[in-house]
């Protein structure tokens, strides 16, 4: 068994044996879907005439997936460093890249399951999401989005020393970003400066990409732009994450 397989397996077991976290990782976006679905049931967005669910489902989905990626790896790295598990790994010849790769494959798997479950629920008649024919394009968008937000989570997990700090920092990043990126309300309904601000946020492009793929809004080129920008964020945040990674809080 390779170090990568072993770490991935250990991570998978730790994850699936923690029923509470497991449940809420998948239930969290669904709760938002239900709440917003109830609030805006039967309404359409003025500008496009499309059902509101077509906005809210991709927005909540991308936010939920991004959130799980940031929190998941952030908590694990903080905990592993605090409990000396990183120190244990550090004393073996296993490289940092293997440690992070094992978290990456877990994050991708969690994101895929989250997305599948979420879309399946949103397709129920009571929510009424209609999938566009180009929905498979959501897969590359998801991969790139998860990569970018996982890198962000690694940075958070490298700086935060307590669970409270992880939660505070990650929430501070993810909740305002969700509103500013149009995850919960269509950006069209927001002031111009807010729309402009959204262009520096990775979640905005994650929303655009997921929305374009699932509901067919915008052109194929828009999905391409979303993917390209997410890849850029992934590269930059990934480089920072590798740079800031710490095995231990000591020197």
């Amino acid at each position, binding site marked *: 068994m390779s170090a990568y397989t072993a*770490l991935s397996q*250990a991570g998978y077991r730790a994850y699936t044996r923690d029923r509470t976290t497991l449940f809420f990782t998948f239930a969290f976006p669904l709760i938002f879907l239900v709440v917003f679905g109830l609030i805006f049931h039967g309404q359409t967005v003025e500008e496009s005439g499309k059902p509101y669910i077509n906005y809210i489902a991709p927005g909540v989905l991308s936010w939920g997936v991004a959130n799980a990626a940031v929190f998941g790896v952030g908590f694990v790295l903080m905990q592993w460093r605090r409990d000396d*598990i990183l*120190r244990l790994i550090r004393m073996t010849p296993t490289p940092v890249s293997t440690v992070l790769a094992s978290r990456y494959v877990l994050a991708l798997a969690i994101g895929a399951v989250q997305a599948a479950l979420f879309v399946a629920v949103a397709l129920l008649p009571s929510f009424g999401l209609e999938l566009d024919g180009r929905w498979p394009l959501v897969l590359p968008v998801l991969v790139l989005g998860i990569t970018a937000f996982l890198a962000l989570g690694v940075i958070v997990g490298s700086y935060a020393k307590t669970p409270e700090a992880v939660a505070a920092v990650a929430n501070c990043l993810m909740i305002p970003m969700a509103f500013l990126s149009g995850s919960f309300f269509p950006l069209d309904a927001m002031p111009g400066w807010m729309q402009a601000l959204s262009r520096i946020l990775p979640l905005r492009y994650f929303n655009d990409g997921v929305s374009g793929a699932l509901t067919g809004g915008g052109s194929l080129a828009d999905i391409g732009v979303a993917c390209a920008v997410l890849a850029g964020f992934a590269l930059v945040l990934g480089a920072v994450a590798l740079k800031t990674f710490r095995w231990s809080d000591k*020197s």
Partner: protein
Amino acid sequence: MTSTAPRPSQDPPTEPSAGPAVALTEVHKTYGTTRAVDGVSLTVERGEFFGLLGPNGAGKTTLVEIMEGQRRADSGTVAVLGMSPWPRNTALLPRLGVQTQASAFFVRLTAREHLATMAALYRCDPAAAERTLASVGLTEQGDTRVDDLSGGQRQRLAIASALVHEPELIFLDEPTAALDPQARRSLWQVLRDLKGQGRTIVYTTHHLDEAEALCDRVAIMVAGRVAALDSPGRLIAAATPTTRLLVPAGRLTPEQARAIADVDRVTEEGGSLVLETLAAGRVLAAVDAITGLQGVQTRTASLEDVYLELTGTGTGAPQP
């Protein structure tokens, strides 16, 4: 007090199996204004069982972490198996086994799964995990989650984590701290077997009887410096040649005891009259003549006496 002089490095880099296991020269490490390690030079030979003793805060853990490559020495040279352990040296790491004080385990795994993960991280075969589990007597607890293990079982699992890849040089940090006497003795056997296989062991402990029983040499650290370094036997012989004879109370009056030639000091302790002497044979003969030797005990100094003498005042003898 004695201190091993650093040896000139003789081993060519192509032959890493020659030369000492650890060679430290004038190693310093300062945290803020605290001199955690203050000029330590010592050599641990291959196959040696080396004990690092000293009160809490004496710098033992920092020194061990420098040898393990977890901390960088501010100055001085550090050679472990002929290589520098800092920065992280992945060529050296598979040859080292490290047990830390905090028992760090992969969360929500069983003991067996944790050890199998460790084996994979060291790139050894899964059978190694089972073998190591058995060697520390945890086979029966293999399917218990790490969080549900008792203190002693956790300690043994932590030691197993350091041994799973059969390292040449093993660092153990207070390995017997949480063990009951039975588990402690069985761990002694594990450690002796490891030494028997030619492995080098560097370990810290507060159990001086254990250090005396197991270690080839011990270094006693006080305030970041090595206050003494030698075999336990030689340290004891050099430090306190005094023998204490314990005579049951009532058999001998203090006046009678003081009258015996070569008795340096007489005290009463817990129902016994204690006679301190440098000439135990002659004093024993004199006691025999007065009251017989029934119930008389002879106590020579132990490593603990040496240790307390060196650390009690808080200042060790300066190193040369």
